[in-house]
């Protein structure tokens, strides 16, 4: 390994934060280290300029709270007292432990972007089942709070979303979603999930990633994946379908008006 470095660069450079004792306790993001850095003519490349950012939070940013409170979906953020009923009833949390509506709401209340940033990859995973909103003792409406969260993540971390998670296919996912609803009259979670992944070109991840495969397997096992076939279309579906069709036809114009 060291030899390779010698070949590829002028001088050997250590891996990021390699020389920190108990390196496993420090988040990657908290380590500031330039591989090549010269200050006042002195070469401090590599570990010589290693700097660990403090874990200590030194402010509560209430402007963030205000911003969320102004949105329709986030207007009840001031109500949350962190009982955890939302996370306890969440459909997603058992599959993705890092998806924790209770904690996300708290981070939003305190404007803790540093923490929120760590969850860019899972924060949008709410499936909108509204169990949390039905059970929330304070009527915070956490399900819609997750929508506020998604909007804010989109606003504050556009780079992370693009570079790390390729979540730029809103339109495509929307098309899958609409196609499924209009075609079957029901939401087939397993189908929605797999087709969205396929559209994103993540076919490899679909089969290889432990979490993804586990999720699909679980949905097959508990019958959610097959519920559409078993249940058929909802009663008097054509009326609902007409209404949805009508809504979708006008949705574009509605959005423009709102803007």
């Amino acid at each position, binding site marked *: 390994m060291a030899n390779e470095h010698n070949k590829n660069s002028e001088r050997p450079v250590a891996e990021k934060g390699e020389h920190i004792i108990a390196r496993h306790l420090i988040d990657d993001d908290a380590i500031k280290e330039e591989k090549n850095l010269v200050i006042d003519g002195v070469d401090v490349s590599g570990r010589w300029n290693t700097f660990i950012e403090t874990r200590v939070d030194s402010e509560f940013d209430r402007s963030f709270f205000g911003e969320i409170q102004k949105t329709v979906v986030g207007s009840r953020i001031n109500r949350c007292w*962190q009982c955890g009923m939302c996370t306890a009833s969440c459909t997603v949390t058992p599959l993705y432990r890092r998806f924790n509506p209770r904690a996300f709401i708290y981070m939003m209340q*305190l404007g803790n972007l540093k923490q929120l940033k760590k969850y860019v990859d899972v924060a949008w995973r709410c499936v909108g089942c509204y169990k949390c909103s039905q059970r929330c003792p304070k009527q915070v409406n956490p399900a819609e709070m997750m929508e506020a969260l998604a909007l804010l993540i989109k606003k504050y971390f556009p780079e992370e979303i693009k570079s790390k998670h390729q979540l730029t296919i809103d339109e495509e996912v929307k098309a899958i979603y609409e196609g499924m609803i209009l075609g079957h009259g029901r939401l087939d979670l397993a189908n929605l999930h797999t087709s969205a992944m396929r559209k994103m070109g993540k076919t490899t991840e679909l089969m290889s990633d432990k979490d993804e495969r586990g999720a699909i397997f679980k949905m097959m096992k508990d019958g959610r994946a097959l519920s559409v076939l078993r249940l058929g279309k909802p009663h008097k579906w054509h009326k609902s379908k007409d209404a949805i069709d009508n809504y979708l036809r006008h949705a574009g114009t509605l959005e423009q008006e709102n803007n």
Partner: protein
Amino acid sequence: MAENILVIGGGPAGLHAAIELAELGVNVSLVERDTFFGGNPKKFKYKYLFPDLQPADNVIGELIKRAESNNNIKKYLSANIESFKEDGKKFSAVIKSSTGSETKTFDSVIVATGFEHFDPATDSKYSYQLFDDVIDIKDLERMMGEGNFTRPSNGKAPKNVAIILCVGSRDRHVGNQYCSRVCCTVSVKQAIELKEHFPETEVYIFYMDIRTYGFYEDLYWKAMEEHDVQIVKGRVAEITSGPDNTVICKGEDTLLRGPFEIPFDMVVLASGMEGGPQSPEMANKLGIELDEHGFLKQENVTLSPFKSNKDGIFLAGACTGPKAIADAIVEGGAAAMNAYIYAKKNS
């Protein structure tokens, strides 16, 4: 012949007990150590009472007025019980006041000597009295009573305020393991008052539990939902000086599992209630028992909470444990009934 009953302490409980007994025709001797009646609420100029934010004067002022205008009550101010002894089923006490000493015989006695606010200066981690902008619950109550909501250090509106709960309560380190019951409700009440006065001020409450029991919960909900008061879970372990004339609260956000060191313009310590030096003093003088928390001991906390362990001596109000003014007033009435029955049987 009318019964003679001694009421020690002229706070909400003692006043109410005295008034009730006097209305039954009892000759009441009401002994108060301060120069005024009304107890701690009067002493620290409580302005508005929870849960309905009614003026304290509606309650305390009213009790004082009714006691003062009742001729069956003999009032002793700046007074204390110099000596006390049992005399068969009766009691003999020497009451010393500014007008001299008086020896009297009583059929029964009500002790309503109340509580003392915990002194946060005795717990150095809070830096109370070290920084002007670190005040406690009674300081803020008095300030607000005087119409002053500003920072003590510079008289300006605070940008942000931290309210720290459980100061001097639920803390083995200071010797008080109990919950003081009212500080949570007083704190959310004060948070609301602060926000009503300075809507732009950010108010944070650092808590381990928020115990606004019963209907006091309404006030807690109101603070959050109508005034955007933010609760942060974790107790503050240290208060130090910060930049730009701020004080820094250092603690752990136990929900995020992360340390914080946040500068505040003003810190309010929700200091709890203690039995004070008067509780052991009363226990010694009257020969009644003290409990393990430093308050006067009830004969049976559930069945006979207004009785001391000695027949004929009854207890009311915060001398038996932390409680709200409303509870103290209720207990004054209950103890009055107990004391009246005892006196009636034995006179």
